């Protein structure tokens, strides 16, 4: 009997002994005048997206200013961020929302909930009109960036719309179709309807405007996972935003470049894309390749600072732990590297 009582007593002690859950350290939330905003997607379904701020002048990194300011996670899979009028508009794809924060305090100013949509990339046209693509709904949503009201929930476009930009008062949308579409839709903001469709290469995914006001479209090319001999090469298409015509094309042969991803355009007349073995640099005036391997490092994301002309490469590493940003001088010399959150997918600059 004494043995049994001893066992029971020991069991009660063990049941009572439990490890405490770890406590997250308090994070710092700076007031940022000039800095680099790095949007970290976070793991799919993990709801651990974050917003890192890097201040080059003081060489300081703030790992997640959103949670520091708002005491909550940003959400699940943050795909895009733009700054307009001291506000940052953050697209959180798998939380089905647009989070709006102050770029001074990083406090949330509002949330646009879009249940049923899959917001992916965003552009702000002016104080009263903004647009974002819905990746799995083949549509674009128009909203008011000041009142945060939805203006038109679904403007039908092509398959799996990804990149979106504004030029010449119009909205241009890349219909990627993951290789099964090859068009750019043009939306007239006055009527929120597609008014033109431009044929480009297969799987147009990224889009931007260069220093000449021309539209640059990066097409990934088609990937056939079961038979790579069916793959088609990637390409860069240059479009005149007034006539909606393709004015030039840079072909990127498969054997040399694989399937290109990501686009960064400088206002100094050049741009970058990520190819098989590293970073390709091209001229946006002559629309030709400047260097087929400007930096011999591949990356998950890329951005170029228009002022310092530094190039920022986002490395998602294993997609499960914190990523890295590698900062290169304009002459491709590595200057610095900083640690970010999980999957640094978008890099923008507050000048």
């Amino acid at each position, binding site marked *: 009997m004494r043995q049994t009582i001893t066992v*029971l007593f020991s069991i009660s002690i063990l049941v*009572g002994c439990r490890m405490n859950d770890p406590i*997250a350290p308090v994070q710092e939330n700076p007031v940022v005048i000039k800095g680099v905003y790095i949007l970290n997607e976070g793991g799919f379904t993990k*709801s651990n997206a974050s917003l890192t701020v890097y201040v080059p002048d003081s060489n300081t990194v703030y790992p997640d200013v959103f949670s520091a300011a708002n*005491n909550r996670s940003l*959400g699940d899979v943050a795909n895009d961020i733009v700054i307009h009028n001291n506000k940052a508009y953050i697209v959180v794809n798998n939380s089905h929302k647009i989070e709006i924060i102050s770029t001074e305090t990083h406090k949330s100013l509002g949330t646009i909930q879009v249940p049923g949509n899959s917001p992916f990339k965003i552009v702000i046209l002016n104080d009263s009109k903004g647009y974002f693509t819905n990746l799995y709904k083949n549509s674009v949503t128009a909203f008011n960036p000041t009142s945060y009201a939805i203006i038109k929930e679904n403007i039908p476009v092509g398959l799996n719309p990804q990149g979106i930009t504004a030029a010449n008062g119009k909205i241009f949308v890349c219909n990627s179709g993951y290789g099964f*579409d090859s068009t750019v839709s043009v939306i007239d903001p006055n009527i929120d309807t597609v008014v033109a469709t431009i044929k480009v290469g297969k799987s147009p995914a990224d889009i931007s405007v260069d220093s000449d006001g021309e539209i640059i479209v990066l097409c990934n090319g088609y*990937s056939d996972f079961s038979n790579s001999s069916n793959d088609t090469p990637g390409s860069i298409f240059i479009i005149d935003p007034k006539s909606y015509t393709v004015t030039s094309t840079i072909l990127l042969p498969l054997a040399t470049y694989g399937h290109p991803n990501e686009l960064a355009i400088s206002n100094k007349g050049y741009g970058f894309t990520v190819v098989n073995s590293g970073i390709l640099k091209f001229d946006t005036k002559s629309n030709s390749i400047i260097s087929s391997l400007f930096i011999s490092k*591949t990356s998950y994301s890329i951005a170029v600072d228009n002022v310092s002309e530094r190039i920022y490469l986002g490395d998602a590493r294993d997609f*499960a732990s914190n990523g890295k940003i590698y900062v290169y001088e304009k002459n491709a010399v590595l200057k610095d590297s900083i640690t970010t959150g999980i999957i640094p997918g978008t890099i923008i600059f507050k000048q």
Partner: protein
Amino acid sequence: MRNYFYDHIFLAQLSFQGWAFCCYQFFVKKIIIISLLFFRALFGEEDSTIVYRLNDVVVTGTRSPVAVEKLSSTVQIADSVLIAQSNGTSIADVLSSISGVSLRNYGGTAALQSISLRGMGSDYSLILINGQRFTTFQTNTVDVGIFSLLDVDRIEVAAGGNSSLYGTDAVGGVVNIITKKPTGKTTGTFAGSVGSFGMNSYQFSGGGGNEQMSLLASVRNERGRNDYEFYFSDGINRYKLQRMGSDYLLSNYSISARSMFDTLAVSMITLRYSNADRGQPDAVTSNYQNNLARINDKDLILNIVTDIELSNEWTVSFPISIYNKHQTYRNPNIITNGSPVSSFYENNNISFTPLFQISMSSDHMLNAGWDIAVASISSNEVHSARREQFSGFISSQNIFHIPYEIIMYPSVRYDSFSDTEGALSPKIGINIGILDQPLLRFRSSYGKNYRVPTFNDLYWIGGGNLSLKPEHSKNYDIGVIAGCNDEFASVLVEVNYFAINATDKIVWQPIAGNMWLPKNLQSVSSKGVEISAKVNILKNILTIQYHQNFVQAIKTSSDYSGDETENKILAFVPQETSTFILGSSFSGISMNIIYSITGYRYETANNNPRFILPTFDKVDVNLSYGFTLHSMSVRFKIEANNIFNNDYQMISGYPMPLKNYMMTSEISFY
């Protein structure tokens, strides 16, 4: 073991506050126990259905029957008693109550449920049915949530490496599901259940025959909406939502025929078919849900076993297993290649595993056999592939009396595969009996184990890597088992320390062009202590089963320079789990209280404390009453799960049901 406790973080993180809080909760729950005792004292009458034996015999530890306390490493048993004490209808519900098993549930009944043994992932456990491989080569992961308890007699869980007996995948351990066998007795059982969230089921089983020829057949159908309520917080608001698109229909059919040709030869043929059709909701990441994905599993298994006793010394067994698994997955919400995701996977496996058992004397026994198998896959996501396996194994049990009883268990197995590298898996185990009454025995084992690349790893379209080699591990364990029987109580206590060092772990890594490729990349170390106790006081006035596991599974390798996940705890592996089952049975009335705690789990590989799944505890109860009338017995059972309405998740984004109920009525004829 002493060093383990003092050197590792477990005790360092214990605090008085945590202890006091938990003790408070524990003692509040003890009020229930005291009430039960009082109730028992009022109506006290002995019931002999629950008796813990010190000499349970298992087959999984050595491939032949051995008393559990005489093995070189632990084998936990979910016998008919534990199955009756548990809530739920699937083997997942029972496995969650077994020491060393960690369950991962993606959202209630019929959602994907996989098990993890000793801190290793769900693809490091080998699942067997009657000793025959049930784990497919495609993923190495078995959904134990759709495996009904309908015809399950008992489940044996041999934690730790067992590749020397069973080959690939037996790194974390082996789960052997042993089904009911025809006995020749004429029986019939009909049962029906209703429960929360539209759950209803019926089942029938019946058998008959004679000593020479007997038959047992079972049918079960269960369906439910599974639209339970749960909480979701986006950091601003906390919403009470209802699960959508998680309805299910589970059907199970089995028939077994047993034939005894003479007293020395027995043949049994078993055909099992199951069809599991269910919604597969996405992770909850916002207050909006639009779940349209569905998954369907059809499993057809034919087992034919012939056992022949050639002489007093020689016994042979000839098992043949034919297994077909057809799985489909459709998700209209995900459009790739211009159309919704629609995948199918057809796995086939045929195996022949003759086993020879030679008893050279009462102290020396030899097992030898081979394993010949052909497996194949056909799918629109995986290249068609075929795997031929040729394996041989030999093991022995040798008892010495010098002066204590010392039992040695050497075993070795070699596996070769037509499409990937083979492996040699040796193991040596020892068991030393110090005392018989009270019982005190020490045991230890060391072995090499492995896991071959899956079909997905090798042949996934657009991602498979044909140059992968097997993962290897070295497993150690040491333990003590002690017990006593007296007129007041019987007690059985086990304490085990284990260590698994795995290398060449296959991990899918990003490569250029946003592609992913599996590579032999990582090393993992998993160490831990398992404590289990079974107590039976005053012949069932009160029975207690208690399990507590401490596990520290760490990634020990660096995938790249500056890898911050090196020496971090694996995501979603709890460092602490415990289960406490209190039962009482009298006058046909049984009551059980199941209290479980699962410690916090990191959600990220770099162990960011901001992203954790917090510790949760849960209390389930059941009450049953049965009586016998002539040749008929009737039983009613009421189950209540999560009675304190705790909001918890086992995997992030997959909330579990709040309080829910089930009621079952059963009539048996014999």
